[in-house]
C-alpha cells in the first residue's frame, strides 16, 4: 500500500541545495522531501550526483577537503549544516550502508557492537541483546549465530553486506542511507537485501542509491531521477516508471541512455 508522498510528514527536507567540489558544481539547487517510513530510490547515470547527494545527508562529504555546501537540509526541522550541529551525533541518527561491504577486521559480534561501544553503551547484556536483535533484523542470525566470534572477513560478500546493515541498525538510527548496497553482490544476495529493505521500512526511513532500474521499481515507494547534478523529477515509483513527466526520465528508464 503506497500512500501519496505529498500528504505525509517529511522526515528530511532538502531545499535549494548546491554542492561544490572546489569550483565544480556537483549539485544544482536540489529540493526534495523524504517521508517517514518510506523507501526513496535515487536513480540516474554515473556522475549525476546521486551519491554525492546521499553523502550530504549524513555529512560524509565533510571528509573531503575543498567542498562547499549551500542551501539547507533539515532533519525533523533541524538544519544539519548549522554550526551548532554535532556531526558525530548526526551520523549516529543517520546510518549508512556502503557500496562495497566494508566490515571491520574484527569478529562478527565486535562489528555489530562497535557502534554501541563508541556511543557509550557499556552494559554487556544490553550490547549482546542489541547485537542479536540487529543481526536478526538484518536476516543474518541463522547463518552466523554459531560463529559470532569468528572474523567477519570469513563471511561471503552477501553476508558481509547484511552484517554491515546489522552494524548500522545496532545504533538504532532514524534514517538509513544505502549507497548502491547490492552493486557488488550476486542475484541471490541482492534478493535477500531487497527483502530486507522491505521489512526495514516499517521502522526506518530509507534512501537508496541504485543503478538497477528493476531494483528501484521493486523496492521503493518514491523514485527521484538525477541528471547532471540536477533533480529532474521525483514522484511515486509507479508514476515515474509508467508515466514520467519529463522526457529525460523516460529515456533513462527505458534504457535509451545512461
Amino acid at each position, binding site marked *: 500500500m503506497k500512500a501519496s508522498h505529498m500528504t505525509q510528514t517529511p522526515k528530511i527536507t532538502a531545499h535549494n541545495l548546491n554542492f561544490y567540489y572546489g569550483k565544480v558544481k556537483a549539485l544544482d539547487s536540489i529540493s526534495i522531501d523524504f517521508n517517514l517510513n518510506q523507501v526513496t530510490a535515487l536513480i540516474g547515470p554515473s556522475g549525476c550526483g546521486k551519491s554525492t547527494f546521499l553523502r550530504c545527508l549524513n555529512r560524509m562529504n565533510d571528509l573531503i577537503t575543498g567542498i562547499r555546501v549551500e542551501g539547507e537540509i533539515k532533519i525533523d526541522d533541524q538544519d544539519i549544516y548549522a554550526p551548532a550541529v554535532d556531526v558525530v551525533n548526526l551520523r549516529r541518527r543517520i546510518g549508512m550502508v*556502503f557500496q*562495497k561491504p566494508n566490515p571491520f577486521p574484527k569478529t562478527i559480534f565486535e562489528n555489530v557492537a562497535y557502534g554501541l561501544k563508541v556511543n557509550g553503551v557499556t552494559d554487556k547484556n544490553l550490547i549482546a541483546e542489541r547485537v542479536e536483535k540487529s543481526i536478526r533484523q538484518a536476516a543474518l542470525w541463522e547463518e552466523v549465530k554459531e560463529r559470532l566470534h569468528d572474523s567477519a*572477513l570469513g563471511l561471503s560478500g552477501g553476508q558481509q553486506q547484511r552484517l554491515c546493515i546489522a*552494524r548500522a541498525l545496532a545504533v538504532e538510527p532514524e534514517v538509513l542511507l544505502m549507497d548502491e548496497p547490492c552493486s557488488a553482490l550476486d542475484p541471490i544476495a541482492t534478493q535477500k537485501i531487497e527483502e530486507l529493505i522491505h521489512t526495514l521500512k516499517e521502522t526506518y526511513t530509507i534512501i537508496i542509491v541504485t543503478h538497477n532500474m528493476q531494483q528501484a521499481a521493486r523496492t521503493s515507494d518514491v523514485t527521484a531521477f538525477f541528471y547532471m547534478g540536477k533533480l529532474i523529477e521525483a514522484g511515486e515509483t509507479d508514476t515515474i516508471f509508467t508515466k514520467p513527466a519529463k522526457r529525460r526520465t523516460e529515456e533513462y528508464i527505458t534504457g535509451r541512455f545512461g
Partner: protein
Amino acid sequence: MIHSFTKFKEKLMNYFFLLVATTSISILAMITLFLFKEGLPIFEKVGIKAFIFGNYWYPTADPAHFGIFPLIIGSVSVTLISALISIPLGVMTAIYLSEIASSRLREIVKPVVELLASLPSVVIGFFGMVIVAPFLQDHFNIATGLNMFNAAIMLAFMSIPTICTISEDALYSVPASLKEASLALGATSFETIVKVTLPAALSGISTAIILGLSRAIGETMVVLMVAGGAAMVPGSIFDPVRPLPGSIAAEMAEAPYRGDHYYALFAIGIVLFIFTFCFNIIADYLSNKYRQTGDATL
C-alpha cells in the same frame, strides 16, 4: 634455426640470473660460516653458560675473563630505553602525518623525516658527544655525559625515521572505507584512529617497530662514540655501558689473530647475529599474523 637460437638465449639469461643470485646468497652464507668458524673455538676454553652469563669481561688480563653478560645487558638496556623514546614518538608522528595533517603538510614533512634516516651514524654520534654529553653532565650532575641515556637518545633518533615512515605507510594504506564505516556509525575521528585504523595497521606498525629496534641493537658507531664503554652491568641510566657491537669494533684491532680474545669477539658477533636474526623472525611473524588484506573481499 632462429627458434632454437632464441631458446638458447633464453636459457643463457636464466643461467646468468641464477649465477648472480647464487653468488650473493653464497657470499652471505660464507660470511655466516666464517663467523661461526672463528667464534666457536672460544667455547673450548669457556663454557657457553660462563661466556653468556659471566660477569667479568677482562679479555687482556691474566688470567683472562670472557663473560659478556655486562655487554649483553648494555645492548639490551640501551635498546629498551631507546625503544621507550622511539616507539611513541615514531608511531605518534606517523598517526599525525597520515590521519591528521593536511595532505600538503604531509608531503613536506614525510620526506624530511625520511631524510633523517640518511644522516650518517657517525654524525649522530658526534652530535651526541659534543652537544648532548656536555648538556647531560651540566644538568644532571653526573660524572660523564657519555652514558647509556645519551646512547639511547641517539639510537632513538636513528630508529624514529624507520618506525615513522613504515608505520605511516601502514596507516595510510588502511582502506578509507573502514574509516568511513566507523565515522558513519557516530565514532569520533579519535575513536576511529584508536579502534579501527590502528588495529588494521598493526601488522605494518609492529614490523616498523622491530625493524627500527633491530637497527638500534646492531648500531655500532653511535654506541662506540657515546655509550661510555664501561664493561659493567649498569646501576642507573646515567652509567656508561659497553654494548656488543661497540666491544667488537673497539677491540678487534688489538686482539691477537686467532687468540682467545679474537675468538671471543667473533663469539660476540654470533650472539649479536642471533639477536638480530630473532628480531627479523619476529618481524616476519608479526607481519603475517596480523595481515589484513585491505578491503573486505567478496
